[in-house]
């Protein structure tokens, strides 16, 4: 689980050749930018049920960190810890620590509203509000009382989400009238309108067709220049394509037959997909299970 540094670039081993792995854009992956999140021995309980445990990883600034693994291994649970959305689930609690810059994210004095403004989230199924496109994007700035010309903020956000050209003449029409891919980009626009530092994406392309997926993956590359991105994905190829670092989770069954998730390996994407340290990782990415 130790991180590799820049002096071991990916080799064109048998594992990486079978995946669409682009080395050229991965220069930024090897830069050790500052840590945005430092996760130490994180575990999440829902009541008495230990959903995921022993998670240690570091999310670095302006990089895309992917979390992959089979179903039920706790990836989304961990993701939701980063913006404290798990607080909304009764009985949910965390053990261990998440350090956000120099603050303990679960410290006693933390304002969860401010947390969520700085750490935005895009959900698996696009969930635009039943309002106009303009009001969808303007909602975040309005509730957070962000100063500035609202029209400009909305336009900037829609441009940033690669949606402006498609909707600039219909800002007053319903957000729900857009196609799935457009709705998801609207949700991304909504999220970046409040100028967050981090964007969490929970399987953002799971409900979309391949073309819409490709558009959003390209968008992610652009977004990573200004935001830190953490993405949970079922799609290994997607993780290999877009991310800089990857965390692989798996689910284990204990003596009572209860499933718990855990982190297996966290490393540069290039390493995970070419020479992973753990056999379970290798089995997963070569398709032997999952």
């Amino acid at each position, binding site marked *: 689980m130790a991180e590799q540094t820049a002096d071991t670039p990916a080799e064109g081993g048998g594992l990486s050749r079978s995946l669409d792995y682009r080395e050229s854009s991965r220069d930024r992956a090897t830069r050790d930018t500052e840590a945005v999140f430092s996760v130490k021995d994180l575990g999440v309980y829902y009541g008495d049920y230990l959903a995921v445990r022993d998670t240690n990883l570091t999310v670095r600034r302006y990089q895309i960190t992917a979390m992959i693994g089979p179903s039920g291994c706790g990836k989304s649970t961990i993701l939701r810890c980063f*913006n404290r*959305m798990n607080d*909304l689930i*009764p009985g949910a609690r965390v053990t261990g620590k998440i350090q956000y810059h120099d603050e303990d994210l679960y410290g006693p004095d933390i304002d969860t*509203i*401010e947390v*969520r*403004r*700085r750490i*935005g*989230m895009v*959900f698996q*199924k696009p*969930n*635009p*509000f*039943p*309002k106009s496109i303009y009001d969808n994007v303007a*909602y*975040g700035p309005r*509730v*957070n009382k962000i100063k500035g010309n609202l029209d400009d903020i909305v336009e900037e956000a829609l441009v940033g989400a690669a949606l402006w050209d498609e909707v600039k003449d219909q800002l007053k029409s*319903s*957000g*729900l009238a857009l196609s799935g891919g457009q709705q998801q980009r609207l*949700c991304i626009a*909504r*999220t970046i309108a*409040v100028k967050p530092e981090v964007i969490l994406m929970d399987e953002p392309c799971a409900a979309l067709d391949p073309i819409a997926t490709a558009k959003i993956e390209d968008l992610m590359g652009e977004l990573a220049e200004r935001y830190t991105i953490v993405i949970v994905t079922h799609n290994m190829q997607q993780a290999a394509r877009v991310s800089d670092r990857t965390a692989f989770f798996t689910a284990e069954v204990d003596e009572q037959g209860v499933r718990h998730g855990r982190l297996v390996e966290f490393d540069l994407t290039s390493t995970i997909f070419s020479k992973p340290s753990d056999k379970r990782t290798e089995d997963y990415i070569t398709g032997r299970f999952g």
Partner: protein
Amino acid sequence: MTSPAEVGIPPRDERAVRLGPTRRRPAEVLFHGLLLTSLIIGLIFLVTLLVYVVARGWPRLDARLWENFNSIRRPERAGAQAAIFGTIWVMGLTALLCLPTGILAAIYMEEYADKTKWWNRAIELNLQNLAAVPSIVYGILGLGIIARQFGLGTSIITAAITLSLLVLPVVVVASREAIRAVPSTIRDGSLALGATKWQTIWKQILPAAIPGIATGSILALSRAIGEAAPLLLLGAVTFVAFNPDSLTSAYTVLPIQIYDWIRQSREEFQVLAAAAIVILLAILLLMNSVAIYIRNRYQKRW
């Protein structure tokens, strides 16, 4: 060549299986007919009632009805103005009292209350039971506590408070259902943007829940407008020759006026009663139209 039977496939019917003509499916027809019959039975009763009342009250459906006050000795001069205004005052106040209270209570129970605590579950259970309490009991409550203990007397405000309590469970239950029906993805999306709980409720959840809440208010106010029993107990007098002028004034309402006229032996009062019923239905229709208009505006297909 192996035949299908040898391979274990059951023999195909030699007659070619055609797609048409449409097969008769008696169960479908029966069910459809059953539904239609139920609807028609309900409609027949409603239409009969309406036709009877309008026909009976037709001779007196004129300006005298809302211009004049009641008169015991001269039915041809009797009118229901006091009752009409009384109803409008009481219903207006009742709506003002029970709707905000009910909606806010529903918001609390759905969004803020910890559902695992026993007292919240007890409240939930009792709320639904309260809707079944006979309205005369609310009259006793109103008389004993509001009129006497609180000293508000036999006034419009007492009537409004009592009726509000009577219909509050309906408003709360309907509003809760409406709030619960708002998809949690909307809630999650709003909170994930850094909105507070109250901002989420006020800007996303309530607007989405308005259609259900409007329906609940229609049901509640429709019930309240027709209540005579509790108001009789609260002292809504039947011979009133003035309109209400303040929250503490005496009053009468249409159901009570109707009740009084029906009890009179003279035929003219029966006709008056029927006419007054038509007025009551008209006021009810007007009130519900407002609610339906609000509901439709928020139900606009987004």
